[in-house]
């Protein structure tokens, strides 16, 4: 019998790879638990609520899509609809050819949807140079590899492999230090951001009610890719909508917590249309490409709940099969439990139904899913569909087994013959089992023999102790919001200070319009109008957020978005503070904004935290009164 490709891959996978994947996934799985517990009083209730909202989206998909399109267009985002991968590629290439007829660099933010349509190949074929700018995706690209995880693309690689690749590409001297490697990538990709006329991204959420496109990330490459070039193209699976802006905090916290254990990703980019006339930078054109590519078909079938997925990767991290085989074992863009359902649901059980068999059905995936997708149930349904349609064949003759199991007489005869059968008859399961296991053999008495003349065991009074009552949670003391914010910020690599303690006398600074007024009389080492050259970018924020230690920045008149991203140090002046993420919407202007939570960071190299990978490595929040 032909072995499943997943099993075949696992057999050839060196132990070193399994070890890389296991250590990283175990770490993130533990971080997830702590992260969600810190973000939500009741993570379980949060998951239930999120599942409900995603189901609402799926039930009202067309209505919400129409609303999204209408609201996007209102703010100047051009929307395109693509039935399949071919059409999406065609649309994107048409936009590219208008924007940069001569080809050139296209910076890419990490996006599974663009992987799904194999966009890079199409761009290359048309004479463009697509450059993956997420650290992990960049390594994948220069190694001509494919991502083996939807969140951590190089989870299967160790630092020695990455070091060899960087040295080979001439990024710098050979080093195995994750921080130095990340800085080499930063320097190399900085040039690309400068050069690119087009930036391509995926979409994490799109808000139907307002037409806002939401992108999340930790490194800063995504904001660079979608801010520096003149044209931003965002590719989005049609299911990735949220009805209202107020749904966003729940999903942002669930996604970050489930994916990495963070309270929030470093950057939450809230895009509200192209650059306004009074703004200094940002793309002058934004295109949103809505991708179906089989999704409506999935929505109409028995696996529709898989479209709730928000691509956090928690099910991959916790899956014992994924941990053993890595994402590449699945041979598809979408791997792990998510992929084992989504891939055959999108592309056909006849083609990929075997993926549903590569699971021990342990149920850990459903337990961690932020939107409670019943993955094990769907794996079973896929197995049933695959068996009925002849797409999947099982080596065992279950019909024969059933014939024996429906008559007590046959069953008992079978049991009597069993010791001989396991020894002599080539059982269809025996070869697969016996390769790695000793065969089971009867141990001790048989139950049926014992039952015939068994005397009841004497009953005893057993202790029926009450379960101890849970101690009530003490009500938290009211803390000073700024003190709480300061502690959160410090954990995120930032620090809180005051104007008086700020010394910029030896730094070349870029100041945005609002900051200039606030810093009248301050001494600077120098002032520049070029964000790319500045050592320090000084901006203002609309508010600080206690809950997550974040600051909310918005584009505006005389402001450069890159001031908070390009210089190695970002100083942000802020007066107001709000308790939670829910409160930012009252402050949010009708312009592109960003929630910044700590410094730019990556953990792509062996899970080691490196700060300042594309964005600032220092974040200084200045409280002004």
């Amino acid at each position, binding site marked *: 019998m032909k072995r499943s490709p997943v099993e075949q891959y696992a057999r050839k996978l060196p132990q070193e790879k399994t070890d890389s994947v296991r250590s990283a996934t175990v770490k993130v799985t533990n971080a997830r638990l702590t992260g969600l517990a810190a973000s939500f009083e009741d993570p379980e209730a949060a998951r239930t609520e999120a599942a409900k909202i995603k189901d609402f989206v799926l039930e009202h998909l067309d209505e919400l899509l129409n609303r999204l399109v209408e609201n996007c267009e209102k703010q100047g985002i051009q929307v395109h609809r693509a039935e399949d991968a071919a059409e999406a590629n065609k649309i994107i290439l048409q936009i590219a050819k208008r924007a940069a007829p001569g080809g050139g660099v296209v910076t890419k933010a990490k996006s599974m949807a663009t992987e799904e349509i194999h966009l890079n190949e199409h761009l290359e074929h048309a004479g463009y140079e697509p450059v993956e700018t997420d650290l992990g995706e960049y390594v994948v690209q220069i190694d001509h590899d494919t991502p083996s995880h939807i969140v951590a693309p190089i989870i299967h690689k160790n630092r020695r492999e990455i070091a060899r690749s960087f040295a080979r590409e001439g990024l710098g001297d050979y080093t195995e230090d994750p921080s130095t490697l990340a800085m080499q990538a930063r320097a190399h990709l900085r040039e690309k951001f400068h050069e690119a006329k087009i930036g391509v991204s995926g979409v994490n959420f799109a808000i139907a009610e307002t037409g806002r496109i939401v992108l999340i990330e930790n490194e800063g490459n995504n904001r660079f890719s979608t801010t520096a070039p003149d044209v931003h193209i965002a590719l989005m699976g049609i299911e990735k909508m949220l009805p209202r802006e107020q749904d966003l905090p729940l999903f942002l916290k669930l996604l970050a917590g489930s994916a990495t254990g963070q309270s929030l990703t470093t950057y939450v980019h809230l895009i509200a249309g192209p650059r306004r006339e009074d703004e200094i930078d940002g793309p002058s054109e934004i295109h949103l490409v809505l991708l179906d590519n089989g999704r409506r078909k999935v929505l109409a079938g028995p696996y529709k709940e898989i479209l709730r997925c928000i691509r956090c990767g928690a099910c991959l991290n916790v899956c014992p099969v994924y941990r053993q085989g890595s994402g590449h074992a699945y041979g598809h863009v979408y791997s792990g439990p998510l992929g084992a359902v989504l891939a055959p649901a999108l592309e056909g059980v006849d083609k990929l139904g075997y993926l549903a068999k590569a699971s021990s059905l342990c149920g850990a995936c459903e337990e961690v899913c932020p939107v409670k997708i019943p993955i094990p149930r769907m794996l079973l349904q896929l197995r049933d569909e695959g068996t009925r349609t002849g797409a999947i064949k099982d080596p065992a003759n279950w019909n024969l087994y*059933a014939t024996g199991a429906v008559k007590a007489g046959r069953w008992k005869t079978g049991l009597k013959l069993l010791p001989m059968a396991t020894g002599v008859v080539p059982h269809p399961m025996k070869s697969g089992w016996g390769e790695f296991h000793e065969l089971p053999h009867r141990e001790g008495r048989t139950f*049926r023999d014992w039952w015939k003349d068994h005397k009841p065991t004497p009953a005893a009074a057993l202790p029926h102790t009450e379960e101890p009552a849970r101690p009530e949670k003490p009500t938290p003391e009211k803390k000073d919001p700024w003190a709480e914010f300061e502690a959160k910020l410090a954990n995120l690599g930032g620090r809180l200070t005051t104007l008086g303690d700020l010394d910029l006398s030896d730094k070349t600074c870029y100041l945005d319009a609002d900051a200039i007024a606030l810093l009248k009389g301050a001494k600077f080492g120098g002032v520049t109008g070029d964000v790319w050259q500045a050592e320090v970018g000084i901006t203002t924020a609309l508010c600080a957020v206690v809950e997550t230690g974040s600051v909310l920045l918005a584009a505006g008149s005389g402001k450069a978005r890159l001031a908070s991203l390009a210089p190695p140090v970002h100083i942000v002046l802020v007066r107001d503070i709000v308790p939670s993420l829910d409160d930012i919407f009252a402050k949010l202007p009708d312009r592109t904004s960003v929630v910044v939570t700590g410094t730019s960071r990556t953990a792509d190299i062996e899970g080691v935290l490196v700060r300042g990978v594309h964005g600032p490595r220092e974040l200084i929040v200045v409280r002004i009164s």
Partner: protein
Amino acid sequence: MLTCLCDAFFGEVGIATVRVLEHAGCEVVFDETQTCCGQPPFNAGDWKAARKIARHCIESLHPYGEIPLVTPSGSCAAMLREGYPMLFEGTEHPNCFELGEFLVHKLGIQSWPGEVSPRKVAFHRACHGRGLGLKDEQERLVRSLQGVELVQFAQQEQCCGFGGAFAATHGKLSSGIGQEKLDNILASGAEWLVSGDMGCLMHLNGLIQKHNLPLKTAHFAQFLSEAIPA
């Protein structure tokens, strides 16, 4: 419900289950026409075969009747509670329980008096407890035995890799997961591996025997039965 594995290979677990239930004050009825719940073909994707077996199981064991159906296997209980509604639409909730669940939640037993010889035990929670909403019921009873020292081990919550036919069709993946579990248990210094599902234990035992690992295995009912005074 004895389960097919205990019927075929692990009679002692069935015997221990009856002794434990009787010791807890239950009158145990055993229907001799019972065979299998249908889970093996159900998991393998052959639902036609699974339905045939499930019908036989319903006829012989009346899981929807008044007498609670108790089984020393979380996965068989899950088959009746979660699998049958997938095989037959609109079926009612069966009166069926995993043994530890029944002792703790139905009989209200929180600890098991009695003693066994001193031993270091690693407890593996079988995954089907997830679907049943089980927590530490089985573990709690084992921990309460005098003589048992329960040890913690790395990645305790991870599956053992059995998965029914998966262990035969995806042998490398399955045994790789199982080996990881055994490595973690051995590193904890445990002499015994105890669980509540003979599927997991059959798989892990197959690996233990293949590699001559210094680890004994038992179903938790066997420990409870052993502690019943003679």
